[in-house]
């Protein structure tokens, strides 16, 4: 986004906020017949005309800029047809159109000469201006990032609406307030001083509420668009947000000081106490207004930066903190426990320092020592190595095709050291300075997928592991990581039996895609949230009897919310003909996509006949194979399915990505 587009957005936003705040400040202050107050009111209404004009012109400019971007040529910004197309056929264009329409309606009240001799007219006029401008401002939420937020667009828009509205009320009123205070603090402004004091006190109450609303809705917005620390410090959106927060914090320091010190002092005797306080307050509020204008600039930049949630966060530090290291380290647990208690004690001392004025200095010093010691003690054991890609999310889903591709790459490039099954016992392992990692160990807690990605890409120098960034594409590296994820689940998966363990879903079923040619393909993901899937790997003729059982029970199983997907272990494209007319099999028989399914699910169970019961959420919940001693009756299967259906959905849907 070039500087022009950004500047237009900033100007539009600042003018819209100023328009809202001016009208709101007039309403807060109320009518007055004092000359200074009247002069201030006409200055504010005069400024409102400019704000309105600038907001509309800059708003049109933003629309034109958007058009040039979308059409891919600068000249489109001046073509009425292109402008109209963007304004009526894109959501952000439509929202801009409605907002500009509301501002146009507001012109009637800002520019028009309406009679306001009575109080009701005066309030109606400024109330309507404030209302129209406020809605026009807050509606921007429906055209911004919130309109693409997941999972709930409506909630995200509602929260952003409130955030923008609160910003308009608070930030917009600051310049008008500063003007009033400056006018009243002058020698000749004495007539309006009580009016200004009253207005300031009212504003102060409103500001407290709006700042609280701003903070809460801002936090909610941050969760929607940034979500975690990595997003906050590892993406440009997150870093802009940090700048915004820092500016906002400084503005709040001013606000708090004004509220505690200068607003109470206003009530004093005008000549000696009140006036100097008013002058100080006027300049402090002016500073606040400047800071807030800077914040709006950052907001304009945020509006054109992709939200952190959709970006790969580049972690800037060489370490990160995680409590999962404590799982295997009992000593560290003690250290963290003691350290955190010391830090809590430090916080208690801080509270004491706030309350006991006399001992403040020694208490603060003591608190600092306690906080630093406790913090260091507690945090050092939690630090683990981190890399720029630590918080990268896999770009390739955890699917059988990716795993199968990864398995091939693994066999070719990794197995020599890491061993065929990932045990770190490959033929070349003995010659290495350090034994290679056992990839079957459950490391998901301590290493992120991004850590693995870094190691696969850049190697580990001290372990003599080479990097593959130059030889494997990014997708290929994720394929290998998906395969390593599978390796990590094979050992625990051996304990999965034919009986569903209620409430315990942990083994993520790798996604797969199959087709009963010529019908279009389906994937496991299609059944998410709607049906359980019984994946049957079968071999003829041994499986014929079991298939007949399933075929006869198919209608019943469908009624219970199960789809059967049968995969022939010979991956024959002619599988349906081979099955023959009896038993009458009507459930899907994979004639395409079977090979990858067999490669991956065959690792869980390589028996000639194996069945996997995969629940609606995408977890393998039960496994049964012909190796089991007892033949399996279909009624047993129905009982397991009833068990799944009776379960309350507590576990989140299985993620196709490694974590």
């Amino acid at each position, binding site marked *: 986004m070039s500087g022009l587009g950004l500047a237009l957005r900033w100007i539009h936003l600042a003018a819209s906020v100023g328009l809202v705040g001016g009208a709101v400040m007039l309403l807060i202050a109320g009518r007055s017949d004092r000359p200074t107050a009247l002069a201030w009111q006409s200055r504010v209404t005069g400024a409102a005309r400019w704000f309105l004009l600038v907001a509309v012109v800059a708003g049109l400019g933003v629309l034109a800029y958007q058009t040039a971007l979308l059409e891919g040529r600068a000249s489109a910004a001046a073509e009425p047809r292109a402008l109209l197309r963007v304004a009526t056929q894109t959501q952000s264009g439509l929202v801009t159109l409605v907002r500009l329409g509301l501002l146009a*309606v507001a012109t*009637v*009240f800002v520019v*028009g000469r*309406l*009679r*306001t001799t*009575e109080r*009701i*007219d*005066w309030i*109606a*006029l400024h*109330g*309507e201006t404030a209302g129209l401008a406020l809605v026009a401002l807050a509606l921007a939420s429906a055209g911004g990032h919130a309109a693409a937020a997941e999972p709930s667009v409506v909630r995200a828009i509602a929260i952003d609406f409130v955030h923008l509205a609160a910003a308009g009320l608070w930030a917009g009123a600051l310049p008008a307030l500063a003007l009033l205070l400056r006018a009243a603090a002058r020698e000749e402004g004495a007539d309006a001083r009580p009016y200004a004091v009253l207005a300031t006190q009212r504003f102060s109450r409103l500001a407290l509420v709006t700042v609280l609303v701003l903070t809460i809705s801002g936090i909610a917005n941050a969760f929607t668009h940034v979500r975690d620390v990595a997003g906050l410090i590892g993406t440009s959106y997150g870093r802009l947000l940090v700048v915004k927060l820092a500016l906002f914090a400084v503005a709040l320091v001013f606000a708090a000081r004004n509220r505690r010190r200068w607003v109470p002092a206003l009530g004093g005797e005008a000549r000696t106490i009140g006036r100097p306080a008013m002058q100080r307050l006027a300049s402090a509020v002016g500073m606040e207004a400047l800071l807030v204008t800077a914040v709006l600039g950052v907001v304009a930049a945020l509006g054109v930066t992709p939200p952190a949630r959709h970006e790969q966060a580049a972690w800037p530090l060489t370490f990160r903190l995680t409590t999962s290291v404590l799982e295997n380290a009992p000593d560290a647990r003690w250290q963290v426990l003691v350290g955190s208690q010391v830090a809590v004690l430090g916080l208690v001392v801080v509270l004491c320092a706030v309350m006991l004025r006399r001992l403040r200095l020694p208490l603060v010093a003591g608190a600092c020592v306690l906080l630093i010691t406790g913090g260091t003690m507690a945090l050092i054991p939690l630090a683990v190595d981190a890399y720029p890609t630590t918080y990268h999310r896999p770009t390739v889903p955890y699917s059988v095709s990716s795993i199968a591709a990864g398995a091939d790459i693994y066999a070719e490039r990794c197995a020599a050291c890491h061993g065929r099954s990932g045990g770190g016992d490959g033929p070349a392992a003995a010659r290495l300075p350090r034994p290679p990692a056992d990839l079957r160990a459950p490391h998901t807690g301590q290493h992120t997928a991004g850590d693995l990605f870094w190691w696969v890409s850049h190697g580990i120098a001290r372990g003599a592991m080479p990097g593959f960034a130059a030889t494997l594409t990014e997708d290929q590296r994720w394929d290998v990581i998906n395969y390593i994820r599978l390796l990590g689940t094979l050992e625990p998966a051996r304990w999965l039996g034919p009986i569903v363990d209620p409430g315990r879903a942990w083994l993520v079923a790798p996604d797969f895609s199959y087709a*009963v*040619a*010529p*019908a*279009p393909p389906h994937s496991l993901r299609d059944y998410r949230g709607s049906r359980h899937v019984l994946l049957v790997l079968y071999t003829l003729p041994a499986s014929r009897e079991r298939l007949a059982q399933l075929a006869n029970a198919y209608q019943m199983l469908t009624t219970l919310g199960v789809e059967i997907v049968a995969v022939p272990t010979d991956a024959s494209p*002619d*599988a*349906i*003909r*081979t*099955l*023959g*007319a009896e038993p*009458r*099999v*009507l*459930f*899907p028989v994979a*004639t395409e996509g079977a090979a990858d399914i067999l490669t991956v699910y065959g690792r869980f169970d390589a028996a000639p006949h194996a069945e996997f019961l995969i629940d609606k959420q995408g977890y393998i919940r039960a496994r049964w194979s012909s190796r089991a001693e007892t033949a399996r009756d279909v009624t047993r299967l129905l009982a397991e399915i009833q068990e799944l259906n009776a379960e309350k959905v507590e576990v989140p849907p299985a993620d196709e990505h490694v974590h």
Partner: protein
Amino acid sequence: MRAYKAVLLVNAALLVSGAVSGWQVWRRAAGPADAQAITWGGPEREWHDIHGVVRAVLPELGIIVLTHTDIPGYMPGMTMGFRATTQIPEGLSVGDAVRFSVRGSPPLVVLTAIQKAS
């Protein structure tokens, strides 16, 4: 004009235009779904050259079960039974790739022609 009257007028106009455009947006949002929906019991239509694979033949009922590709404007690809008005060709067996035609007004459609795909 007195300001409060202007405010009342403008608000009334905004409410009306908001309601009207809201109604239009709502109708437009509902529109395409209607257009895509199957018109049950509409005029008879015919679909030709649908590809499928035979899953079961029930000659005594005159029904043939096929896993077929999408039938545009009627249904997505799936496995289902069709009643045949035509003679089911001799030698048609499970697993055969076929091309077929159906005719009717959904959901009452019959299979009018079927032949093995070469």
